[in-house]
């Protein structure tokens, strides 16, 4: 073989590969659809790719038959009373579109919601607030890295339609994370916004280019999530009675809970207890005496979520879950502190007109209400359904009136200790 042919046979495959990738990206600008069946899997997949991505999540949020259920790790606790199982078993008009997994706190939800845009307008949704989000440091660097979605951030920058206070707040929060600071473009843009200015023209052009490329990538690969819980949902459906009766479900949840948590005194699910607690039970004793949810940047991040909800005039049911009381006593988690958290978050909601709240904070001692130390399960899910069902099925959608108060972004509020 001559040297020229050798060189050609080395370089040509590379050229062809580049051409194919470029072609795929160009095609993707036309949009790649997602089937109803795939959307159904996505709704209960909980894959982090869905909350970070765009096309699949936005499609679900806009679809008339799906209702967003925002939360974190509790969404993963599938049992017969999980919202996805109940909605499917009793053939309700809606299916929950689960958004969130362990570590998706307010900031991640804000990014995910704002990137849906107008599709949220007037929609109903359920939002489960975890007390554990509101610790001293708020969203930690590790979770941020895991769920950080450049496409959503660039979308925020390119739209730039936030009010001045939340704009500056968001930019400052972004700059708190190493991953953002490392990105020269994002760092420059957010520094300007945090100082109350706007990005340069050239920076905006570069941001649009990045958004363009990321969107094409999302349309191509957004559908590539692998996780599915369809099998678990179908299996759990079989354990439910054919006719819906909340009291009967509550009894059944009691029985199942009793059966599945017999190996410990905390009513924690057996497997969870054996895998994660049993060997180190002593280690946990009194371990969380110092933990506090009083002061946290999370309150400000949560305000971003509220802002977004108000902007889109969404009708949202907020759920404040309890903590497992038996376990909390063992690890020394202060009950007073927890109730102060509950009072503070209630104040933030009610003062701004978010009055649809299911407050379960005082039910942590109810038998078989919690599946493990912090996650709802069994009867807890049934209690949620007692509020979700009327909200989504019986009451007409309303156009809520919210009075957003930028005070809730302030350090003063985030650092304030509210008495019960």
């Amino acid at each position, binding site marked *: 073989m001559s*040297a020229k042919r050798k060189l050609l*046979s080395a370089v040509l495959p590379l050229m062809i590969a580049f051409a194919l990738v470029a072609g795929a990206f160009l095609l993707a600008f036309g949009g790649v659809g997602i089937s109803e069946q795939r959307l159904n899997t996505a709704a209960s997949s909980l894959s982090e790719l869905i909350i970070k991505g765009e096309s699949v999540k936005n499609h679900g949020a806009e679809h008339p038959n799906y209702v967003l259920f925002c939360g974190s790790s509790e969404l993963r606790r599938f049992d017969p009373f999980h919202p996805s199982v109940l909605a499917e078993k009793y053939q309700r008009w809606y299916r929950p579109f689960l958004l969130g997994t362990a570590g998706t706190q307010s900031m991640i939800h804000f990014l995910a919601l704002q990137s849906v845009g107008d599709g949220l307008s007037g929609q109903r949704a359920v939002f489960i607030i975890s007390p554990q989000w509101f610790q001293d440091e708020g969203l930690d660097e590790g979770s941020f890295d895991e769920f950080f979605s450049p496409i959503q951030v660039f979308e925020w920058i390119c739209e730039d339609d936030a009010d001045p206070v939340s704009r500056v707040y968001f930019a400052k929060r972004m700059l708190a994370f190493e991953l953002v600071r490392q990105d020269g473009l994002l760092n420059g843009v957010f520094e300007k916004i945090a100082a109350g200015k706007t990005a340069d023209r050239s920076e905006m052009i570069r941001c649009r280019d990045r958004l363009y490329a990321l969107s094409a990538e999302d349309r191509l690969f957004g559908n590539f999530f692998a996780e599915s819980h369809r099998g678990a949902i179908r299996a759990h459906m079989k354990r439910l009675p054919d006719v819906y009766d909340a009291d009967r479900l509550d009894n059944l949840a009691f029985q199942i809970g009793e059966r599945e948590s017999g190996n410990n005194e905390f009513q924690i699910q057996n497997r969870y207890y054996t895998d*994660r607690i049993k060997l180190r039970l002593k280690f946990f004793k009194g371990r969380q005496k110092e933990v506090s949810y009083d002061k946290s940047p999370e309150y400000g991040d949560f305000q971003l979520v509220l802002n977004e909800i108000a902007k889109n005039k969404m009708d949202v049911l907020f759920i404040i879950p309890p903590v497992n009381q038996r376990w909390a006593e063992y690890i020394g988690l202060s009950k007073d502190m927890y109730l102060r958290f509950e009072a503070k978050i209630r104040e933030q909601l009610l003062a701004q007109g978010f009055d649809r709240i299911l407050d379960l904070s005082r039910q942590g001692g109810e038998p078989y209400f919690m599946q493990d130390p912090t996650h709802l399960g069994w009867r807890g899910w049934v209690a949620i359904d007692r509020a979700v069902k009327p909200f989504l099925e019986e009451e007409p959608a309303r156009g809520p009136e919210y009075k957003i108060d930028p005070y809730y972004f302030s350090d003063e509020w985030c650092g304030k200790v509210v008495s019960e």
Partner: protein
Amino acid sequence: MIFMSPYETPFYFIVFGIAVAPLGLLLFFGKKRLWYQCALTVFFLYMSFGGARYKQGIALAAYLIFQTALATAYFKYRQKHNAAPVFIIATLLAVLPLALVKLSPVLSESLSAAGFLGISYLTFRSVQVVVETRDGLIKEFGPLRYVLFLTFFPAISAGPIDRYRRFSGELFAPPGPDRYAELVGQGIQHIFMGFLYNYIIAHLLGHMLLPLVKEYVLSGGGFLGILYYMYVYSLYLFFDFAGYSKFAIGAACLMGYDIPPNFNKPFSSGNIKEFWNRWHMTLSFWFRDYVYMRLMLFFLKKKVFKSKVAASNLAYFALFLLMGLWHGITWYYIAYGLYHAAMICLTDAWLRFKKKHKDGLPHGRFTRALSVVITFHAVCAGFLIFSGFLNELSERM
């Protein structure tokens, strides 16, 4: 100007491809390329050591001036004389900058200002030149080719550690069109294998799986959890580093250099000695040639020990202790070095035993497979020590 470390992002490869293309054309048409390579070196060093990292850039410049002066002076001296103390002083001076940086946590934090990304790898090259000058093997020496050798940017931050005589041969005798076309093919292959290893597999293992496993162990995963961590971490280490080496080798190929390989299926080794001939090869060969063999020559010539085995074992401990210290002055790096020294001495003892009882021992496909599995676990246990995770675990408990 965009500043970034070598191979940090896919964008680096785009910049590299564009910058190296003219060099490729020069090579393909058999033209001289030295001036262009100098310009490329300056450009890429500025990209990796400029901007926010300018302090490292200054340290690098100072280091190059110092080492070039040292090597030139010693080369001139060696043409006429050959006194052992001068050689020892020259070697110590060559190691001095690295030693100061490594000892900065113990001595004084301010010393770390002399450090820059890749100082270790430059030091391995500097020491090598001093030693080979002493041996009379380096017959031609010039400051320019010495600096180009030290700062060969595809391999500047983490190797492979090339050899001066090999490198300067290629520097002044570029490959012909035919050979260069072959190198381009190999280079592209290496770089894309590097993408698979480093950007995909190592990313999945190290950034997706490892944090989960860590969480699992810290929330009471027990012995099984630690075992799981050990496997994931070891594989991550391999794919991360082997991928990085593939980038370096591939990039060197595209520039017309055939630098030595760094990994050769290390997890298929049948014993620890074989492992070190397959894992981070240029580093272990460096330690073999410039630490172990030197020490052994000294021991045997001067008849320091009666037993050759004792001498060899001591030399192994010296080698691995040094390697441990080089990684950092922390107990688990030192423990890692001692662990491997002990393992290699045991291996030697076993090999001697095997040689004596050749006929009594079974030997076949099964024993080979068994030895690979055992070696893999012994190596992974070493990486578990190396990871510092046991340290973290004991602090948390």
